[in-house]
């Protein structure tokens, strides 16, 4: 039993950290430019595909991940400078639709290049086995994801919370006009933030690739989870994104594992069997609705 709980908690942590990699970029884009970018999930998808292709070509997973991050950052840069820029001044409806169009285009483009079938992305062989310590065993690769995720999340958090650059970013997210008045080039700052966000998407896509299928449409489901995260955390707040990610990751994973069993305690096995998974799959949306009901601007509102 403790093995199971610990395992699920680690799974939740791993999922939460990966969500944070996506949510971090998304929340800053949202916060600074007041821009909804649905295509954020497409960057995640493209990152995973690039990692698979580069790993196959170069024979090294680490190299593949690096190449994917670089490539996706470049793509993000290109996208920001040519297209998204035109949308900042537009209303949310236009942003939703334009980036919805980008999703359609990205999905079809990936289908044209890589085909409709999922592609394989294998974890390095050294990490394919379980990690064992004191009677507890857990897949080594997942442990690596947790380590990398925690490292990146930690340094990103420090970067935004403690450095001068981070101060500009935070200032930009809470009050863009004021930050511009202070002489910060918010445009350029934002282009940089967008590229970094894209690279983080690729990192998440590449790391999750061996666990989930690398396929068209993989970006959409996780995109919506990332939105849930930043809405829970408060748009524009990196701290909110971190707390929200871990919350969503843990609640979702533990809910799926525990709810059916929990419900069996006071419902018939039949009812529990059908209600359990249903309830587990909407748990995080319930969480979000509840949080927004009491705090309509999320847990850590960035704007005063």
């Amino acid at each position, binding site marked *: 039993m403790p093995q199971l709980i610990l395992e699920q908690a680690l799974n939740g942590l791993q999922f939460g950290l990966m969500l944070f990699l996506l949510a971090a970029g998304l929340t800053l884009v949202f916060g600074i430019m007041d821009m909804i970018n649905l295509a954020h999930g497409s960057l995640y998808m493209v990152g995973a595909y690039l990692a698979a292709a580069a790993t196959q070509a170069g024979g090294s997973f680490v190299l593949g991940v690096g190449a994917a991050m670089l490539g996706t950052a470049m793509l993000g840069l290109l996208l920001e400078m040519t297209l998204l820029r035109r949308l900042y001044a537009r209303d949310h*409806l*236009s942003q*939703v639709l334009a980036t*919805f*169009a980008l999703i*359609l*285009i990205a999905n079809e483009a990936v289908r044209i290049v890589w085909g409709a079938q999922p592609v394989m992305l294998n974890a390095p062989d050294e990490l394919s086995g379980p990690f064992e310590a004191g009677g507890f065993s857990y897949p080594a690769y997942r442990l690596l994801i947790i380590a990398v995720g925690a490292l990146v999340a930690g340094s990103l958090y420090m970067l935004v919370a403690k450095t001068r650059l981070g101060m500009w970013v935070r200032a930009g997210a809470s009050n863009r006009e004021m930050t511009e008045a202070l002489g910060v080039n918010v445009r350029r700052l934002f282009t940089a933030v967008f590229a970094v966000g894209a690279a983080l998407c690729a990192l998440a896509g590449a790391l999750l690739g061996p666990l989930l299928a690398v396929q068209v449409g993989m970006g959409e489901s996780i995109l*919506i989870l990332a939105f849930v995260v930043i809405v829970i955390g408060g748009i524009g707040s990196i701290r909110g994104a971190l707390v929200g990610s871990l919350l969503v990751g843990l609640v979702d994973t533990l809910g799926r594992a525990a709810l059916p069993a929990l419900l069996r305690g006071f419902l018939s096995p039949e009812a529990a069997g059908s209600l359990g998974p249903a309830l587990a799959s909407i748990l995080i*949306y319930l969480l979000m609705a509840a949080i*927004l009901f009491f705090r309509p601007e999320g847990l850590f509102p960035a704007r005063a």
Partner: protein
Amino acid sequence: MALYVSSPRRQVLALASLAGLVALPWLAQLLEQTFYVSLASRVLIFALAATSLNLVVGFGGMISFGHAAFFGAGAYCVVVLAQNGVFSAWLAWPAAVAMGVLLALLIGAISLRTRGVYFIMITLAFAQMAFYLVVSLKSWGGDDGLSLAQRSTLGWLDLKDDAVFYYVVLALLAFVLFAFDRFAHARFGRVIQGIRENETRMEALGYPVFAYKLVCFALGGGLAGLAGALIANQAGMAGPNLLYWTQSGTLLVMVVLGGVGSLYGGFVGAALLLLAEEVLVGLTPHWQIGLGLVLLVVVLWAPRGVAGLFARKRDDG
């Protein structure tokens, strides 16, 4: 946008289109292309769904990204009732409308507390909630959805006949558009447009803004529920894809293509999108890339949609 005023030119166009649509099954029969009657029903049903969304987005100014939830709720309502032996349209369709209204009241009561981006996201989340709920309910067919054993029964009308079904759908859509026109000119319609234009000012004039928005949202939900009831009949099933978030996105695309806040925007957008899809599918398996590009162009260069292209520039002096 100024307050909605119907122009005689548009009314003439609308009546001409109506005449064309009435003649369509007869023409299809003549050309032995009866398949098109079924396609036309589908277009009209989506026109109804998109119109209901335009009520919320274009007139109410509430950018709902979860409209598919009400659409899907209506569809499932009809199918589940049919499974329990209720086939009468007199019962099932109003039930679908009521389902849409109730769901919209529930979702709206929570979502309308938030503003801007938060509203978009929370409506999206609620629709996803409905989607996952439906997918994980085994008794509702999970991923595969449920099929409808037979179309609803409506008095002496034989809805199994595609042409009859088409005329029923057309009549409903025409009535809804007529009612929508009345609505836009009635006091409620003016208030809701005022809220779209300046919510704080409306509050300061003494309007209970929240209540107006909620009622408008619920009306949209109810109409979407009706559209859902019809689509279940047209397709002979209800599947979870009806509630998926891309469906909400597609409905928004229709509204924007046709013209946000234009009475016939939903109709025009649905017709354009579905017919373009029909043509593109025949040309290339990668037709969605074309759709995406067209959509990008429309958003960037014709944000008021087709209605905007035809609107005369008004001179306010």
